[in-house]
């Protein structure tokens, strides 16, 4: 374990030079320029939506977004001058686009989402402003993990679904309701899990690298240090799957864990054996859980079946949305993404494809790719801080893998897992957690105090 070497505050830094001040200014101007571009995108699309659909509610959203962008930028400038200049504009760009999409699909939900944008921005600022947030999370990792698991357990027993409060439709009951506010504990558990794993593996990685693999003999030492956590996480994922029928979160948890274990151990076959476990779990789930069997069957053949119109309606409509969007898209408010059931949530990517076309899709993928690249860049820059490195990798991977799971699902590359598209999909918990992840990455990029 290497010692932590915190960066001293800028004002007191003896290394402050004209070059470094210019570098900070350059970063700020980059962020500002990117925010302006994002704002122009929002402006043009808000205008187009007003023309095609009428009404002024989109401008309220736009106004709130502008406030969040300006205030966020200014407050981050004041406390985190050395932060990554692309993370915040990218997140604002994606969440703004998501807001437009939700406004176009379900205006009622957009009014709630814009409130969540305010809350999420505030949370991001609080997290990124808190100098000891990384240290505190690491120090209280067990408390966080057990707290998270307890909340998850409570959800198993008294969980609800805002779309199906009575449970008559058989929808997964993944939310906890407090009045008219619903939160999804498994979303928050993503961060908690990454913090815990990063902390555990940061302590264990020298041992993992030393005894986990006998490089010369090319064999795996089945040390409990490796096998134990693997089986523990596999078990946790299966429990999530069994009790909550939340296939997406279960896969996400396990894949993020595999990624972190791979980074810590440096042992590539772990990834493959982990994927074998995922496949084995998938086969077992296919045999025992109707919801998994249905999704796999639909994935394998959405075109045929006893009643294909009902059975695979969502995925077929999703693919039609990509076809209808073509290269240039139908234009905001001019497509027919409302034919995709719950397009504002799991199928936001397909709805977006119909109205912004392949070019829009490429832009979204590029935004997520750059977000992942910047996250990994932040991780690599945490020299001598394995916990910080693993934390940055884990947080970036959560966003990237979740994006890939849902994008691949709506495009029929993999079975549909039912996770949201980070920053885009409707959902307060999802947006809040995505912004919290952004806050932590910004904190890490600026140097931990």
């Amino acid at each position, binding site marked *: 374990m290497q010692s932590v070497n915190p960066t001293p505050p800028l004002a007191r830094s003896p290394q402050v030079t004209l070059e470094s001040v210019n570098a900070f200014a350059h970063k700020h101007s980059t962020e500002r320029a990117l925010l302006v571009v994002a704002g122009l995108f929002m402006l043009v699309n808000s205008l187009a939506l007003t023309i095609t659909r009428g009404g002024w509610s989109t401008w309220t959203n736009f106004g709130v977004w502008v406030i969040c962008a300006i205030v966020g930028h200014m407050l981050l400038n004041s406390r985190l001058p050395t932060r990554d200049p692309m993370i915040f504009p990218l997140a604002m760009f994606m969440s703004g686009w998501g807001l437009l999409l939700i406004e176009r699909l379900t205006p009622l939900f957009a009014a709630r989402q814009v409130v969540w944008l305010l809350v999420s921005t505030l949370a991001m600022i609080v997290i990124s402003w808190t100098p000891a947030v990384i240290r505190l999370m690491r120090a209280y990792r067990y408390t966080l993990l057990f707290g998270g698991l307890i909340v998850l357990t409570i959800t198993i027993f008294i969980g609800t679904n805002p779309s199906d409060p009575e449970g008559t439709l058989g929808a997964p009951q993944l939310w906890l309701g407090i009045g008219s506010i619903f939160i999804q504990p498994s979303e928050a558990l993503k961060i908690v899990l990454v913090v815990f794993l990063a902390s555990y593996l940061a302590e264990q990685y020298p041992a993992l690298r030393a005894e986990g693999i006998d490089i010369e003999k090319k064999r795996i030492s089945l040390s409990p240090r490796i096998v134990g956590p693997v089986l523990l996480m596999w078990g946790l994922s299966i429990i999530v799957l069994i009790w909550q029928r939340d296939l997406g979160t279960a896969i996400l948890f396990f894949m993020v864990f595999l990624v972190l274990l791979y980074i810590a151990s440096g042992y590539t076959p772990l990834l493959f054996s982990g994927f074998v476990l995922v496949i084995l779990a998938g086969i077992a789930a296919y045999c025992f859980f109707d919801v998994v069997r249905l999704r796999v069957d639909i994935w394998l053949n959405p075109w045929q079946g006893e009643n294909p119109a009902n059975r695979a309606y969502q995925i077929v409509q999703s*693919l039609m949305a990509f076809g209808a*969007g073509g290269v240039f898209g139908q234009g905001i408010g001019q497509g027919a993404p409302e034919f995709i059931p719950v397009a504002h949530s799991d199928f936001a990517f397909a709805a977006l494809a119909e109205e912004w076309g392949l070019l829009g899709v490429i832009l979204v993928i590029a935004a997520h790719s750059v977000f992942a690249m910047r996250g990994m860049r932040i991780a690599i820059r945490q020299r001598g801080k394995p916990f910080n490195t693993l934390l940055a990798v884990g947080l970036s991977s959560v966003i990237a893998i979740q994006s890939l799971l849902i994008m691949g699902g709506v495009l029929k590359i993999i079975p549909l897992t039912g996770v949201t598209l980070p920053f885009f999909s409707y959902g307060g918990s999802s947006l809040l957690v995505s912004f919290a992840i952004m806050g932590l990455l910004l904190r890490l990029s600026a140097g931990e105090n």
Partner: protein
Amino acid sequence: MPFGREINRLLMGLLIGFICVTGAAAYWAITGANTILLRDDNPRRVIEMATTRRGTIFDRSNQVLVRSFVQDDGSIRRLYLRPAAYGALGYFSFTYGARGVEAAYDSFLTGENLSHTLTEALTNQVLHRPRIGSDIQLTLAMDVQTQVEHAFRGQRGAVIVLSIPSGDVLAIVSAPTFDPNTLDLNWDNLAADPNAPLFDRALQGRYQPGGILQTPLMAAALLTNRAINEPIENATANIHLNGLELSCAVRLPEIDLTFREAYALACPAPFAALSDSLGAETIQAVFDTFRLESTFTIDGFAAPPPLVDDALIPAPNRFSLTDENAYENILGQGELTVSAMNMAMIAAAIVNDGNSPQPNMLRAVRPPNEIEWQPVTVNLPTIPFMTDSTARQIQDLMRETVAIGAAQNAGRPNIDIGGHAALAYSGEGSLSWFIGFATLGGANGAAVAVVLEDSADPGLAADIGGTALDAAGSILRQFDN
């Protein structure tokens, strides 16, 4: 830094994942779009249909038959203006799709086949301009259609009138029919109606041929040099077949007639004797030559389902004439069934030196915002049915039939008409048939086939046929001038 290599590999893996997603999105947006958007369960097709302004349909003298108009709520409605043409045009419905002319020329009417420059295509897409289809001009002559429809009123059956030598469909009637303007409202009733008004009798109906088969049989007799002017004993005798009593089209005492007289009066006995004298093989060859088992339709129209499916029915089980079934089939009361289009094309071949033109119905197309019609050239080969000399001999026999035989009702002054009328039995009912032609000078003429369900009056069928040929003659002379 212990994790650098792993992080780079991880990032590479993630980026490969994103590239795969991009590739899949590109596939569905570009290549896969061509197939997935055409699926029946694509609701966007209905939206597109609802906003597409289908072209206007005209008859050959530019009378408007169908047009689209924008309603107050912005939706587009299709309006069928001529009740006499209802059965000829089919329908277009957002709910039930398209049929008939509307289906056959859908790509013209929707503008789907119009070519656009890249700029036009992009502008149309970006501005979401509704698609406007081309107008089409049919070969249909409303004057003929109206007269035939009027003569046909109250009957069930079909009429097809063809122009010779072009094969233009001048009139096509399927009765009973329905009002396509109220199709969506009345669909359930129409579908449940025992008279089956939704069924296209003219193109899809197949009937027992009965005595109307005597014309191809006469062609076979002529080809085999059978003497047609020698008396045949008891030529008017009734034939008893499977509980049916087949008689001449005109009630006659038992007398001797020549073969040509028996043909003129549609008496079955002399033709029944052909099964022995010609043999099943020769008669089968005649049926094959006249393509009686083929399912002809109008160029551009969806073909009716085939009568036999080679993949499903082994060859020995397909219909073929044998010594056992030759007798009943030669009388048109066996397994062999024919359509009105089959018989219209035989009539067309008779007046066109033995070769039948293939029927067509699209005369010209006019793209949106253009004034001039663009003629549609049809280069379909004619179908040979018989030699020209046989055709001319049968013409004479058919003229005789109109002059003194069972088809006298088809005769009209100032026009050369030949025809043949006969009875057929189907179930407990009977059918009346008429096929005929009119010559109009040079190679020009008209051909008609009429079939009346639940009718024992071949004279009525001949009368309707005569009306159709007379009207066709008038309109074709007018166009020639």
